[in-house]
């Protein structure tokens, strides 16, 4: 029934830290440290976690914008890692990205029309009149109109820009769209417009999303399954209902309880975590969460827990051994 679109296997991305006279690599930032998951066709996989935990890096390595250090990314069975550049460029049509910053992701020197036509030009898809029509069509799809095509990105509000970004991503009829915090820079009232748009599009053209965000309520709203990341690893991956109703990992529990609820009558019990997220350049031994974990055991300090299935949810925690 569920067909895998992308399979990520043991994906790692380390950034070297250089030092010394010759700029030797002395250690690594383990931004992504061994991920295994599958994105199924037509679903939305949400990815949450605190800042710096490796969400964006995951998205970028999957799209081969960053060369993974290790691991495989299978797109419809084909490994994208190490694929020859020409072939990869062709495949890119199917894999697109919507960026977090609607201000930085559009070249300020191009008009909106040119921006949207750019992917068509790169892949030589359509010319002349046909191209103009396609641009107009894309603009309409994202709720803008063709007269916007002559204007520059800086003349648009954040929400509109994000729509332009989405139109660009859609131009090539992609299969997978990686959305890297597409709404976190937007105001609440605009955010819902964009989320609705993304959802509508998914329905209309069978898109698959990898949806990265740090706002749990947004992720919950849009995703089918959710992965929770902590320091470069997935600590819990589950169906959204399951995750919210019965979070297994202590970190997930704390995360869920930390969200302020817009209801003054509802006072809930908080788990307040101690300290900050440790640096991925120097992660704690064993379970990387153990220094902040209230249920930390001795084994947690030494041994990395693997991601295991517990009651239909995947958890990486020694509590469930």
């Amino acid at each position, binding site marked *: 029934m569920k067909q895998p679109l992308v399979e990520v296997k043991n994906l790692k991305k380390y950034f070297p830290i250089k030092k010394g006279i010759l700029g030797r690599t002395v250690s690594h930032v383990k931004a992504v440290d061994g991920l295994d998951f599958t994105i199924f066709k037509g679903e939305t996989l949400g990815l949450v976690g*605190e*800042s710096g935990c490796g969400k964006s890096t995951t998205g970028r390595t999957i799209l081969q914008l960053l060369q993974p250090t290790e691991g495989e990314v299978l797109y419809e069975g084909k490994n994208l890692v190490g694929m020859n550049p020409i072939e990869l460029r062709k495949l890119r049509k199917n894999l697109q990205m919507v960026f977090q910053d609607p201000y930085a992701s559009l070249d300020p020197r191009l008009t909106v029309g040119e921006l949207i036509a750019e992917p068509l030009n790169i892949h030589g898809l359509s010319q002349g009149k046909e191209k103009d029509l396609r641009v107009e069509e894309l603009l309409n799809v994202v709720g803008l109109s063709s007269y916007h095509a002559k204007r520059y990105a800086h003349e648009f*509000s*954040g*929400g*509109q820009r994000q729509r332009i970004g989405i139109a660009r991503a859609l131009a090539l009829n992609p299969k997978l769209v990686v959305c890297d915090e597409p709404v976190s820079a937007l*105001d*609440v*009232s*605009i*955010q*819902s*417009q964009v*989320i*609705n748009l993304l*959802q509508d599009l998914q329905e209309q053209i069978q898109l698959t999303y990898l949806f990265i965000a*740090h706002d*749990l*309520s*947004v992720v*919950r*709203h849009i995703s089918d399954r959710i992965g929770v990341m902590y320091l470069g690893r997935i600590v819990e991956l589950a169906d959204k209902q399951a995750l*919210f109703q019965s979070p297994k990992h202590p970190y997930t529990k*704390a*995360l869920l*309880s*930390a*969200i*302020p*609820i*817009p*209801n*003054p*009558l*509802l006072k809930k019990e*908080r788990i*307040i*975590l101690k300290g*900050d*997220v440790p640096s991925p350049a120097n992660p704690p031994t064993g379970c990387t969460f153990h220094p902040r974990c209230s249920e930390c055991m001795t084994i947690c300090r030494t041994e990395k827990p693997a991601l295991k299935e517990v009651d239909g949810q995947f958890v990486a925690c020694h509590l469930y051994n």
Partner: protein
Amino acid sequence: MNKLLEIKGLKTYFYSDDGVVPAVDGVDIVIHEGETVGIVGESGCGKSVTSLTAMRLTPGKVVEGSIKFNGKNILALSDHEIRAIRGNEMAMIFQEPMTSLNPVFTIGQQIGEAVQIHMNYSKQKAKERAVEMLKLVGIPRAEQIVDEYPHQLSGGMRQRVMIAMAMACNPKLLIADEPTTALDVTIQAQILDLMKELKEKHKTAIMMITHDLGVVAEMCDRVIVMYSGKVVEESDVISLFTNPKHPYTQGLMKSVPSLDGEEKRLYSIQGSVPIPGSLREGCSFAPRCEFAMSICKQAMPRLEEVETGHLCRCWLHSTDQGGIQDEATAR
């Protein structure tokens, strides 16, 4: 309860080559002693400018209105007198803990500076006070941290330092301009917790600026909703959440995806926030409002008390139709 801060009819405009930007366009705010007032609204609606104006720190020009703090007319004070209030009776924490601390001075120097200025502490005593404050905001190793520089701390710790700095002189009013927006949820929870604790301990009034309704619900006693330079709704927190009056407030609440309910589609307010200065007749929310009537496009409604303690600026709830004339002649 005593009125601590009373802002009346405040208008702060920016004058530039491109024209006038009425960033704050007639705002009334009252904050009582020990009370936490939330100010919500979309980006650019004038929240920060309002708060900065309260401390007379805005680069804009106050064209109208009055600000009274603790009985003093803020706008009429001499530079010397206003400096005596800043950081002493009225303190501020900002959104960006990363950039709000001076990178070239130690934490201790920066926290100590305020007490040196306002309480005539010696350097040594100021440092002791700094350590004390750091401990108060729950920073471990306070004795060491006091000699460290901002870049050596994480975002959450820096925001704690900011709070320590603001609280160093036991201010009566703490203005917090989106104090947790730049932080992660787990850290945000820590900071909010801390603020609540401090508030209880020191009876400090807080002006809490945020766009996160969750934070408002959790922290505030009273809420002021701003839209495009104006207050559109004001009420106590419970009544606002249970019974929002203004269509904008209603829309805002509905567009946040909830964590328990199960909605297929989010409610969304169409259109986008107006650019301040793009002068328009009528209610500034009218172009986005699904209940907009013809009058809405002609005149700006007044902020009226529609229920006890619940004020709203909307023709739907207006009892005083004469307001049309009033506003029209005022223009």
